């Protein structure tokens, strides 16, 4: 039996795709990183304003499929106000969800991405924005790419 598309394209994902949150360049950003997926041409820029150890504000911009755009949008809502360590931990949970399909114990919008695990080709779409954000957080001068990072 093939995996159901409504598992992949959950309402939360469709909603973020239709009405992306925090989309566009953040004028006050002091960090920026660009991610791209050379396999499909998806692109994502993430802008952060980091104050001390905390992400005071963030936004994203770019183009790609519903999964990559919704994931980047949802990410901006999840990481705002978080410390670098907290952001890493949230990404770890998200990564676990998209690769295993295991939903987290606490109620979280991240769970909407559990369906991605049944479509392995789309895991990179779901993680693209996150790679860029973590790269910006580290102030990594290299562009993030899905090709030299583990999913």
């Amino acid at each position, binding site marked *: *039996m*093939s995996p159901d*598309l409504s598992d*992949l*394209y959950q309402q939360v994902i*469709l909603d973020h*795709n239709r009405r992306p949150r925090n989309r566009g360049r953040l004028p006050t950003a002091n960090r920026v990183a660009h991610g791209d997926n050379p*396999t*499909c*041409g*998806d*692109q994502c820029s993430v802008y952060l304003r980091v104050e001390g150890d905390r992400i005071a504000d963030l936004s994203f911009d770019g*183009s*790609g*499929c*519903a*999964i990559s*755009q919704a994931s980047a949008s949802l990410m901006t809502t999840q990481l705002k106000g978080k410390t670098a360590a907290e952001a890493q931990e949230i990404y770890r949970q998200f990564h676990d969800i998209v690769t295993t399909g295991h939903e987290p114990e606490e109620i979280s919008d991240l769970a909407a991405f559990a369906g991605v695990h049944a*479509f392995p080709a*789309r895991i990179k*779409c779901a993680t693209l924005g996150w790679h860029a954000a973590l790269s910006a957080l580290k102030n990594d001068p290299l562009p993030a790419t899905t090709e030299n990072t583990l999913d």
Partner: protein
Amino acid sequence: MPDWKNVRADFPALHQQVNGHPLVYLDNAATTQKPQAVIDALSHFYERDNANVHRGLHALSMRATDGYEGARARVAKFINAAAPEEIVFTRGTTESINLVAASWGGAHLRPGDTILLTEMEHHSNLVPWQLVAQRTGAKLRYVPVNGDEGLLDLSQLDRLLTPDVKVFAFTHISNTLGTINPVADLCARAKKAGVVTVVDAAQSIGHMPVDVRAIDCDFLAFSGHKMAGVTGIGALYGRRALLDAMPPWQGGGGMISNVEFFASRWKPSPERFEAGTPNFADAVALGAACDYLDGLGRAAIQDHDSGLARLAYERLGAALPGIRLLGPRGERGGLVSFALPGVHAHDVVTFADQDGIALRGGHHCNQPLMKKLGLTGTARASFYVYNTEDEIDLLVASLQRTVKFFHG
């Protein structure tokens, strides 16, 4: 005229279900399925004739050599080359173009020279020229594409063919737009300007008659796997005088006439460009693919594939409001590439796959063209000898469901 219904029975991979639906394979511009005759030719070679070619004095090696050189003659006949020696076997179109760019380009291009390309080139007919441009100091120049209709702006061609242009490389059929370029005319105009021509025939070779003497090109590149042949084999056609004047591009066994510790002499073409053990088994299967396609008749194949593409263009346009269809409306190669409003190409492909329909989505190795057209990607349906009109209707219905899912 072949009975197209029977043709379908020749391709074993088509007879399967995908995600609970009969497979509708519309990704033929990426690679075609293989007929049983080609699969049999490959397995029979391995079952009976396998041995390394050339220099072999035993029975199997002689048989393998006959098979390999027979395939070369068959391919030469397939494209109406003047002699088998004008066919160099390669891994495919990409390697063929890299060979010309590195060997011919490396020997002939100088700082200040210009390489003329078109804006619709696949990365495989663009990046090899960028590499040789970096190495030699030559510059790149592009014949523009006229927007979504996807035609080359040939009114500019004579102006672009300035005396510094040394080579003009262009595709026969665009893998993204479906445009069929007037290659014979392009070659004639380049020839008048003393410019060497390279034709990328990856998308035309299996879909229409391709005659290198009628086109009058200097080089022509293609892949076997896009013409019902197997992967890993393709060819470079080159005029013999040009090939024989080119330096080797890879060294090794099979391409030398004499080797000493500090210098070697090369064999003439095609062996000069086939260092190492060549891909003889796949070449034999490529010969079988030539036989298969000529059995159907390539003019008939063109009518069939282009006819389906034109039909798809019309039906998609009529059924899907706001769809952006690329390439010319009339005469086109056997593919249609399109963008649905508000639905990314990868989502389109994922939804089609759930209905058993194989499409391709993305930039189709045409990133600069996509950027020029203001697109991040398109979905593409590409047709071959086994596809049917009914499959176009299945595609249209699937795309309508996708649009409904995203837009309600």
